């Protein structure tokens, strides 16, 4: 059974390769990475979408990272105990809030604000999308960060506590350095979520195919591109590019997961080393 789903994954990748094959056949594969998307002129460069995806993802990560680390530290250490529980439950709840609801609220709340005060124009921009995306990926990262901080061996915590470290000292000298591999994994997971999200960028980034010059301009991501083009004619070249997008996204995911695996093994090797000092109860 489990084998079956593994095969299914491979089948999916093959299917995309097959459907995207016309691109390679016509020698247009490398033309894919050109910067112009203009179906009328037979130019199907998806580079603007790749760049759009990257920009939104990186920006979202930049916005989300301080927020996530801050929340994780609060929830694990700095906040009073009852608030910690409340924070954790709320964060888990936020992970379950439908993406489309975030998008919907942002369209009618954030976009007008952006239009009025920050970027003018339509308000639909890479910046807008990445702000909302930052909120969307924060819970994933926070949950991972908290797990990482919690898995620091108790004996170290006792040692540091009994020497009179203040919470912030404990965090800087012990917890963050020790939890470093899981922090990194959390960031990678967040990256994956941001890259893979369709709705937010589709609803908020404006979807223009031109190569954006600044983050305040409209842009299109790979995921949004798939959603937008799917309505077109099945056999057109335009249509086949979305399989290239799909393929790029899949490969990206594979890379991320494999890197997480490698990091994880590195991390657990560290943990085995750490296990030399077993737990002690106060």
């Amino acid at each position, binding site marked *: 059974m489990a084998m079956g789903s593994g095969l299914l994954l491979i089948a999916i990748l093959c299917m995309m390769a097959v459907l995207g094959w016309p691109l390679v056949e016509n020698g247009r594969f490398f033309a894919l990475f050109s910067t112009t998307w203009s179906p009328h002129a037979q130019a199907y460069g998806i580079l603007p979408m790749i760049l759009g995806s990257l920009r939104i993802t990186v920006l979202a990560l930049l916005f989300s990272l301080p927020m996530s680390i801050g929340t994780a530290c609060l929830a694990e250490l700095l906040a009073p105990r009852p608030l910690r529980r409340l924070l954790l439950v709320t964060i888990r709840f936020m992970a379950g809030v439908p993406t489309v609801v975030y998008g919907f609220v942002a369209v009618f709340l954030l976009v007008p604000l952006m239009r009025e005060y920050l970027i003018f124009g339509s308000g639909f921009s890479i910046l807008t999308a990445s702000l909302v995306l930052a909120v969307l990926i924060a819970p994933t990262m926070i949950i991972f960060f908290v797990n990482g901080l919690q898995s620091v061996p108790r004996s*170290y915590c006792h*040692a*540091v506590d*009994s*020497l*009179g470290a203040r919470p912030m000292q404990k965090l800087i*000298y012990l917890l963050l350095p020790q939890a470093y591999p899981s922090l990194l994994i959390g960031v990678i997971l967040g990256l994956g979520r941001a890259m893979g999200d369709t709705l937010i960028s589709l609803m908020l980034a404006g979807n223009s195919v031109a190569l954006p010059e600044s983050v305040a301009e409209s842009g299109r991501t790979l995921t949004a591109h798939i959603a937008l083009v799917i309505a077109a004619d099945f056999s057109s070249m335009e249509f086949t590019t979305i399989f290239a997008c799909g393929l790029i996204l899949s490969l990206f995911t594979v890379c991320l997961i494999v890197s997480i695996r490698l990091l994880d093994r590195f991390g657990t090797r560290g943990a085995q080393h*750490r296990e030399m*000092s077993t737990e002690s109860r*106060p």
Partner: protein
Amino acid sequence: MPTFPTAISTQQLSFRYGGVPILHEVDLALSAGKIIAITGPSGIGKSTLLSIFNRLWEENGDGRLQGQVKLRLDGSMVDIYQDAYPLDTLRRKVGMVFQTPNPLPMSIAKNLAFPLRLMHIKDKGLITTKSEEMLRKVHLLDEVGDRLQANATQLSGGQQQRLCIARSLMLEQEILLLDEPTSSLDRQGCLRIEALLHELRGTTTILMVTHYQDQVQRIADLCYELREGRLHQTL
């Protein structure tokens, strides 16, 4: 024989931890510079009892404490549970050593420097002389003096434990809490620690949880058994 002032005193001290009563209205007055052993059946909360004196139990929450706990710190008795007394200061003045040695995953030198680092002391010379002094005190200097940059987790169990004691002494504590410090060591390591405690006696008040009656006989000045929420003096 000089009379020592009181170093640890409790009044009407009751303590529940995780819903389990540990202490019930205990009055206690212990003189400074002694080694006080605490015995009792396992699982009765001896370790938790120790953590009352540096408030370490608060890190795990879920405990309730009533009554007064006073310690002699810097020459005067202070109520350590009164709000005005800062938690980090308390813990820097009351050292604790755990059942299993817990050196931090860094070099021996850094382990020793860690408490000073927490105090924002950056004077390299001071840190080095102090480290050496403490290593000498715990008889580790001869054994590891030449490899202070080695990772502390590579030492033997006994060495690790002595390192932890040295680390606790870096701040010149007057009170030391020891939670079965020898239970994870072999006989040789155990005897060395006991010898060390003998030397510390007089300058440091040592409150020690132990399982071994023979250890009590060898080094303790006083011994209490924790039973049904009370401390019964047995020595």
